[in-house]
């Protein structure tokens, strides 16, 4: 299995949210039904003027040990053999939201219209055509990348601030924490 994962360089995110728009557009995710498969979340820390923010783009991390899949009572969540992408079978899903309760990353979301769960597919249809996921294609600064998990897992840190501890679910995501170069 050739699995894929995300690589995020927080310092490069300019909060333009191209990743969010791209995801919505490519996957034709209906608006206004409570589903944002990819979402930029901004966290504020400290007290003015000792204040700091972190912006973190988040989607499904297609965990190696996907709790959503484990807890699904109707086995609607499955993993593709060929690329490790975790998907929700819309025909099987009963919308009980159990997966959402167990996912530490807010990936499965309840679609208010279909009354079923929905989440990031890593644009597997694009991967199959040799294209990058839509969010990665649009990201203007390279803050969001993806690649073969065997290569990503050796990069950066396995966690960052405001990211749920990865031990249990083993999400396929790494964070580049190197700061910008210091001026000599």
């Amino acid at each position, binding site marked *: 299995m050739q699995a894929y994962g995300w690589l995020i360089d927080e310092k490069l995110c300019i909060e*333009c949210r191209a990743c969010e*728009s791209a995801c919505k557009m490519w996957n034709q995710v209906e608006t206004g039904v409570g589903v*944002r498969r990819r979402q930029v979340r901004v966290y504020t820390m400290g007290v003015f003027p000792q204040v700091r923010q972190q912006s973190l783009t988040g989607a499904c991390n297609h965990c190696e040990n996907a709790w959503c899949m484990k807890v699904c009572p109707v086995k609607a969540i499955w993993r593709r053999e060929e690329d490790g992408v975790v998907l929700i079978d*819309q025909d099987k899903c009963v919308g009980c939201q159990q997966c959402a309760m167990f996912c530490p990353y807010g990936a499965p979301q309840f679609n208010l219209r279909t009354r079923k769960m929905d989440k990031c597919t890593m644009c597997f249809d694009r991967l199959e055509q040799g294209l990058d996921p839509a969010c990665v294609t649009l990201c203007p600064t390279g803050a969001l990348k993806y690649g073969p998990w065997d290569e990503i897992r050796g990069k950066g840190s396995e966690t960052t601030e405001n990211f749920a501890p990865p031990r249990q679910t083993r999400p396929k995501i790494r964070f580049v924490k190197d700061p*910008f170069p210091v001026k000599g």
Partner: protein
Amino acid sequence: MALTRRDWLKTTGAGLAGAPAALGAFEDYFQRASGAPAGMTRIVTACGICSPACGIQAWVQDGKLRFLEGLPGDVSGGGHLCGKGAAGAMQLYDPDRLKYPMKRTNPRKGLHEDPGWVRISWQEALDEIAFRMKQTIDTYGTEALLFVTLPSPDLWARFMNAMGVVNRVDHRDECFQTDMIIQKYTTGAKTWCNDFENSKYILLFGWDILAKAKLAYATGIVKARENGAKVVHFSPNYTATSRFANEWITIKPGTDLAVALAMIQVILSENLYNREFVDNYTNFGKYETEIRTHFAQYTPEWAEQISGVKADVIRRIAREFASNGPAIAPAHKKSLCANYMNSTQLVHAISILNILAGTIDRPGGRYFPRMHSIPGVDAIYPPPAYPPKKGRRVDGRDKLPLVNEVDAGIFSTLADGMLNKYPGMIKFSFWNAYTILGFPSPLKMVEALKTVDFTVVMDFLPTDTVTLADIVLPSAMYLEGNDAVARDYIAKYPQTVARKAVSAPIFEAKSIAYVAIELGKRLCPDYFKTPDGSWINPSTLLDEKVRRAGLGENFADFAAKGLVEKPQPFVPRTTFVSVAGADGKCQIYVPQFVAKGADPLPKWIPKRDQPNEHYPYYYMTFIPAVHRRNTTENNSILHEMFPTNAAIINPALAKKHGIAEGQKVLVRSRAGQIELPAHLSETVPPDVVMVAHGFGHVSRALSLAGGVGARDGDLIPDASIDDFVAAGNYGGSSCIMDAVCSIEPL
């Protein structure tokens, strides 16, 4: 729609393409994948949400726009788009779009009146507009016409010129007008090209330049940081740009001018300026005594009293800026230039900082764009002489001669002019793509508009302005038209992209160029004929523009190429052609200003409104990164990301007034009041109330944005032209952030 594997197989037949391309070294792998998504065709076009016009490749499937992405090789967006640009299809397919010309049946006008629209034909609409215009001119003269539109495209400008329109106003007083004026007199023609990538020191005054996601700028600054540049951000509040900067320095709102003046003082008194550039390419030598004497008063200690920025910090930043070049201090937009009564002086001071750093048209500095020269309609079909423009300026612009020279107009004095200075003068108005939300005191603008006998509004969405129209014209939008776009935001060498329609205009939407020609045929036919006597045809005109600019044999040929560029080495200028008498040099001291009632050197003047016992807090507004002012709030994707606004206050301020997160508050200023929920955030200082601009559309025909949020402009006082003259605001900056307010829980 969530795709399961089963769906996918159903729609495509099979997952035929194998695993992604061969894997090389890790970094190689991150080279962008190329090739077309299956079953889609590619159209090259240009974004039209904001001005840099990033190149786009649009993917169309079964005749429907499916996906927008960046155009590889395009310098403007760097081959990418931002969140707004990527959601452009939602503008195109917005179900609320205006579809047909319509006529009002309800004679009462008001934001909450039902206009009683009836559908009419284009023919009928144009005939009526032409009749009303002619009748107005015959009875009252051309000064009774008001055009609230940009002077583009060129066919539209020709129409207005041919009709002798005196009163044309646009939003540039809220945007780059002051920058245009100052650049013209200090360094030459207007430009907004900044060579961030090669800069080593980037000084940002109060401008959330990164999050505004003009990618041409944002990606340049990212590259600069990767190249080891230092970024310093003066801003009262903490923003995405502050996070990105090496240093964020909080400053009292509206006092950037004091810091800039003190920086000049330090650089001059310590002789840190770029001697080679200043001696050879500026008028410093000629006016050295005046310049040194003038700035000597603005010490960092003086600036500290006003701005709250420590004197030693100002001194250090000034020294760093002057000694660690190439350095740049960009100026351009709303967040900086137009906000305060003293913004013209601030732009002059920033221009001087760039001149002293020696980076005007130098690597790492502010440079002049190198572009394809695309001729306008007047060059291709020379018009008969235009009639002289006679009559009074309703916005009083003629009292500010420098603003007159750049042929803009002033939004903030328009309502006062229509209601108080020249009541009843305007009988006919034509609005294109502007909403009343863009004005300070928008309700006053509504009252002013009610005094106009006949109003035409052309737009692509049913905005609040549309509600006040007598005739509505449905406008095509950027994805529905053809054009050659020579982008001037980052034009180090000429690079022009073909804007090709990805869709025919929906229903009966038409372009403003069409309206120009059709009204021209009816009102000023001599200006809309070609030498052989036929009517000007926009497609033929575009073919001719493309041919003369050397972009292709015709537009179809150019569009097939998509992007045409002419790489050339960057040769820095040695003469700076600004205005008569400038001797081809950059002007620090501007002698021509004296005759025009302006100061030859920037001097300190305070912002308009200061906190006081009734209104103790600064009022600040901002445009969210995911919106384009007043136009994208109804875009379903962007609406979902940022649906409404709030009064953003510091938790300390909230505690003082007993305000909880999400609680409704009343925010008041001398101009008006708004009610909205509070949002507590440590990113704003404790003496500031901050509200996002672009919300508070009243029009219920906007199904997402209508009735949502509060109008930030209700708290911003408009102005009279006399206020501007008295304050020395000779660049006419519109003070759209220059307000103070109170806040209380409801």
